[in-house]
């Protein structure tokens, strides 16, 4: 490698003239957590684009996730104190996630921003109405942009046409294409990844292959929420972490059920798609086969496994199956290795 002069990336390689974007709260909320946010994050991390967010947008994003999670009937109900802690941790984790991916989060500082904010909310005929929460939030976002960003070098990315207009009047470039809907925003994100608008025949990956999704651990509510618990998806996940995660999921079970359930999940992760009867053969003895079978049924009814014909696979990351099976795989790695 040393013999090669590093090649300075060009515009086509999405490196030179890196465009900077300021993304507002609504736009951020419109992006899918499992696909579009990670793509945007990876694009920033690899230097394809530069993205600025206000602290306000990150709070909104975390609140939105919190609201979705706590409404989910499958979620465990946390006591109020724990809920508050969970929200704080979500904010903290998202803040760290964005920063890890080189997305700049601009904090709100009353000392520096309040004058600008007051001007925006009080000027006659203003777009922002002081008694409307959403307007106040947007005004805060604009105030931060006006104080901390250079409008000449940054483009505002949003799909609210009126808000875009205000940003434009304030000196910011809006996009080359007029963003009129959430779909346009998403299309734009794809095109950003494609290098420049109109170039769609582009594909890339992060340095280790596939783009990493937002670690589900950031989003999930475990029974005993542990803010220090981070990505199970990371290759370096230690067995104690995975065991903890599994404990959370399996701690109401008898030791025998727990053992078999953990084992089938580990084996399904290692062998999927795997024939169900073969799985039972690998896990159980002849006399305990019925217990293994009933545990498999429970995992299917809990949407951890999907049964396709005679084959079993873990359910998707969104449904939680693949994550839990991967955790079991790490926890029971010795059993998996014994198969060999």
């Amino acid at each position, binding site marked *: *490698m040393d*013999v*090669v002069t*590093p*090649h*300075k*990336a*060009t515009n*086509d*390689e*999405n*490196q030179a003239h890196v465009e900077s974007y300021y993304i507002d709260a609504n736009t951020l909320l419109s992006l*899918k957590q499992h*696909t579009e946010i990670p793509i945007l994050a990876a694009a920033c991390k*690899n*230097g394809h684009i530069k993205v600025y967010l206000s602290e306000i947008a990150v709070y909104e994003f975390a609140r939105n996730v919190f609201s979705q999670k706590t409404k989910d009937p499958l979620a465990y109900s946390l006591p109020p104190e724990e809920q508050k802690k969970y929200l704080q941790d979500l904010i903290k984790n998202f803040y760290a996630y964005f920063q890890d991916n080189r997305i700049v989060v601009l904090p709100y500082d009353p000392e520096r921003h309040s004058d600008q904010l007051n001007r925006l909310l009080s000027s006659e005929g203003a777009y922002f109405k002081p008694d409307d929460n959403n307007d106040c939030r947007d005004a805060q976002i604009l105030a931060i942009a006006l104080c901390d960003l250079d409008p000449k070098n940054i483009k505002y990315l949003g799909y609210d046409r009126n808000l875009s207009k205000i940003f434009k009047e304030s000196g910011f470039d809006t996009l080359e294409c007029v963003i009129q809907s959430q779909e346009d925003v998403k299309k734009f994100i794809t095109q950003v990844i494609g290098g420049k608008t109109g*170039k769609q*025949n*582009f*594909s*890339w*990956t992060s*340095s280790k292959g596939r783009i990493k999704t937002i670690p589900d651990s950031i989003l999930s509510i475990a029974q005993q929420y542990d803010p220090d618990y981070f990505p199970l998806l990371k*290759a*370096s996940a230690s067995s104690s972490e995975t065991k903890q995660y599994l404990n959370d999921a399996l701690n109401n079970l008898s030791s025998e059920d727990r053992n078999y359930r953990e084992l089938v999940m580990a084996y399904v*992760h*290692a*062998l*999927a*798609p*795997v024939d169900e009867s073969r799985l039972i053969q*690998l896990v159980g003895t002849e006399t305990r086969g019925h217990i293994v079978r009933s545990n498999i049924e429970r995992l299917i009814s809990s949407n951890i496994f*999907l049964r*396709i*014909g005679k*084959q079993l*696979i873990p359910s998707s990351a969104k449904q939680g199956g693949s994550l839990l099976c991967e955790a079991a*795989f*790490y926890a029971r*790695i*010795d059993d*998996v*290795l014994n*198969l*060999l």
Partner: protein
Amino acid sequence: MNIEERAKVLAKLTSARIEAGDKVLEQELSRIQSNLSSGSEYSFLMAQLELFEKFAGRFPDKTVEILEEFMTKLNSIDLTHSCPNGLSSSYMSRFETKEKLITKSLGILNSNRYADFDSLPKLLDLQMLYARDTREDVAKAARENLGEIAKYNLRVYDHPYPGKQGHVLGPVCQHLILEHLEKFSDDNITCNCTAIRILCEGILSPTIEGTDWTYRTLTFNTRPVTPSAVEQVRDRALKLLAKIYMLSESPEEKKASILSMQSATHTPHQGDYPDDLLNLIAANTAWILDFYIGALDGLDPCKLADLDLMMEIEHNAYWHHKRMNNVAVRDAALKVKSKIDSNLEYDTYKTLIGFNGIFNTWVSPVDNKNENIDDEVREETETRDSKLERLLESVTPSSYAEWTDRIVRYAQIKSNDLATFPNFGKFIEKVSIQHPDLGLLWLTSHEDELGGFIPAILCGILISDRKADALDMVQSWVTKGRFLAHTARALQFQKEEYPDLIKQIADISIERSDVPALRQIIATLTTGYTSARKELVADVIPMVLDKLGDLGDYSAPAAIWYMPEKDSFIADLPKAAAQKILNLLLPAPSLRHELEEILVAIAKYHPDIVLNLLVARIKREDAGGDEKYDAIPYSFYSLKKVLAGQESACIAAARSLYDGNYGMFVYKGGRLIRSIFPEFYEEISQALSTLVDSGDETDIQFVMAILKSYDGDVRIQDVSRKIIEKVPEDSPLAREMVWILSATGVVSGEFGFSEAYEEKARQIEAWLKDPSQKVRTFAEGYISYLRSAAKERREQAVNEIKLQKFVYGAKEEDDES
């Protein structure tokens, strides 16, 4: 744990990167190394390689070492084979070869080409070693791998450069390849010239490529290379190719180097590309044109191979001048033209021999706004014809020696693309007409060297005033059995008939078993055939065919399949002679299109003997003994046209083959009717219905076998209904009718079978109101079966899609759909 399960676990451990897993992978690596080193059974070794490829990327340097050792070891061992079902070891060795194991090993190396750049030189050396292997499959695989290595891969190209923020790897792999190749000694370059050319062609590619896939799509992504990034590697690759050219001793290798350099002149095939890239390509093209000027200095116009190289250079320079809108390129191309134009011998060569020579005016894209291909073709033809006339004028008694030397030299050129140098032949014929003395001189003094051009010379002299001398010479040849085919070919194009000479050639060809001459006699007698030749044909052809039959030359009749006079020739042929042609076709391994044309021509007049031949071929196939023998094709192209109206005769012929073994007949004689009549139509239906009405159970079985070959075509319903009415309910025959009617043939789409079954159920609903109770009962059961099969197939398809999504991945929109 079976091997597939083991492979899955190893793949998971490879991506997991955990300490315990890594230890297991290391143990697995040692185990596989030991197995590859000690094993000799093909399936065992292949299984080890398949396991190895799951995690080889984790140990790139060790992988190269293990596979190099393994491939070397293969040369010194005898493979053993596990032989299932009593198959012999020698039979298995036809499929289980060392070549396959080496190709697999090279494939594993190739898939790990980006795993560790430090291992790349060693990996390249190994692929290059096997790229010059004498075993074609191995060399081909290694060369394809080298092409892959040199390509610009999108993922590698855009990968962030470690420790250099804002930089990407770009053409790093190409730099490393050149770094390695540039250290080669001259001998090493010469030895690996093919491999190096392949690598250079990849490096000179104007596009970066990548693929992306889901369970149902494969996307090819391409983008132009970045000119500033690849400028250096392209220059270095071109210089390396120039070096190969200079070191090459064989004209073929020199020509191959010139061909490889052409890669630098290509623009991206798709999409827009920046002006910078076009400028870079133009600069490379100008460099190549300058190189041509130096190369032309080293060429000797007395050597045919050098003349051929000059033609390649002229051709390339012309097209660069015509296509590249760049002053430097055009100027350089015109310099090449000027250099080539000064060589008169080349001008003669390209006029007489060349198919790639340039005869058009050199016009640049600036001057030629309205390109018209018809005008260009006309100009080329006129210029070449006028040059040919001038060359003809230059043939005088004083230049006989010079021309003889040239003609003899040019006649030695061996075409490798079946070209027959038509202009050269035309020229020789015209010279022989105008200068029959010279023609006779060639035939008397250089007849062996002029080989395939003897017919052209003879054709010329036979219409000159030295015809009698030519015939004397021919007579002396024929008597001695010399040039029989050549002479017969010359007679093929004569307006005058030479019946006695042809008969004499036939007699001597038969006596000497001269197959080319015997074939040529058939062609000569067919060309320009009129009934005036009927007697001669009846006299000569049967004995020629008998002899060809004795010699086992079944493809001789194919010599006339394309001739317009073929039909009248066969029409006048006595039935016995036509039968002799068909006899020749009996042992033919397959009835190819051209042989079918002969069958069609004969079937117009004698359908019965054609059907007899088909029956005899099927019997011959049934008798076994030749596994490559294919009695009848899946479908004839045009036999149905001449056998229309003969449906009953065809069915009778097929019936004669039925021996009561329904199971086997379905796949053998049962195919005959479908092969002749791919579409089931009314006349076939009527003929089969008649047989059902009048026949016994064996006849019904025969009809069912015919119906089965039509893959459940809706038009077989009428005959099927008759059979159902006739056979007992719940009998094996009635149950077989379910399979015959429910066959679908080829279906398309994930739900193809399910939709086909649902459609079949709809098609048969009318039977529910049939006056026959038997038919109604059958229809109820059959429809119920079809609906349940459709449901089952749909569920299977849905499950299959789910599994494919899991295994191969799906985009979010696929999940939503």
